[in-house]
């Protein structure tokens, strides 16, 4: 049983590390600030999530697990706010995003049916 838990938590920690690495690669490869923020969001979610889940399995039913849960919950609510603040500040300072398509001017009609490929 202890061996099974070790294997499971090892796999989760390794998985978390993989997604953190992917997020770091994304941060380097993406072309501009906004897309880089998307790259790091993989770290915030799957990376940190799997890593902490793996650490919880190591800690077992202890207070440490509860604290890890708090860490996860707090980052769950604060990290999006940070990402949003960063992107909004960039837009406010006129850092233009490189866009393939700009749909900001699309007409918004509340509750109107949406066409089959998403066109309003």
């Amino acid at each position, binding site marked *: 049983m202890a061996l099974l838990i070790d294997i499971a938590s090892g796999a989760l920690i390794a998985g978390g590390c993989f*997604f953190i690495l*992917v*997020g770091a*690669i*994304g941060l380097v*490869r*993406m*072309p*501009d600030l*906004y*897309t880089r*923020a*998307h*790259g790091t*969001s*993989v770290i*915030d*979610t*799957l990376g940190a999530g799997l890593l902490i889940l793996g650490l919880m399995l190591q800690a077992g039913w202890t*207070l440490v697990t*509860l*604290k890890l849960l*708090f860490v996860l919950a707090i980052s*769950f*609510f604060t*990290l*999006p*706010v940070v*990402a*949003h603040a960063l*992107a*909004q500040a960039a*837009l406010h300072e006129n850092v233009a*995003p*490189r*866009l*393939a*398509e*700009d*749909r*900001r001017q*699309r007409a*918004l009609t*509340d*509750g109107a049916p*949406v066409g089959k*490929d*998403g066109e*309003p």
Partner: protein
Amino acid sequence: MRLIGLATFLFAFWLALSGHYTAFLVGAGLASAILCAIAARRVLPADSESQPLRLLVGTVTYYPWLLWEIVKSAWSVTKIIIDPRLPISPTMTRVSASQRTAAGIATYGNSITLTPGTLTVGVAGNQLLVHALTRDGALDLESGRMDRRVARFEGTA
């Protein structure tokens, strides 16, 4: 009544974080919990946002759904990052939030940002400005799937 509830919650939080159960430390925790509750009486507004227990029902159904959405989109962003061609099509779009309260719109905006591949850049009233990593991500948000889900979650509060 709410004061006692807050003090109890704070004391439970202290006990959970402390892990040392000597008479002095537990007593100190109890004293600080009560003092904090009294101090917070003037800070906390008397509205529904400070009573999150009422959101609990929606929370059990909404967050598992959101978690699965996050896993799915984190995986698709991962595939984009490790793809040598880096197949991104950054798109800015505007979506309207149908939630009635500020907390509901904040939950929707936060959910969009938390989901990898989409990022809430600006909020004006019930209009959210969203940057998406791919065109498909933007179109998926425009379809209002997540918006309806959050509105339903809010409706249970």
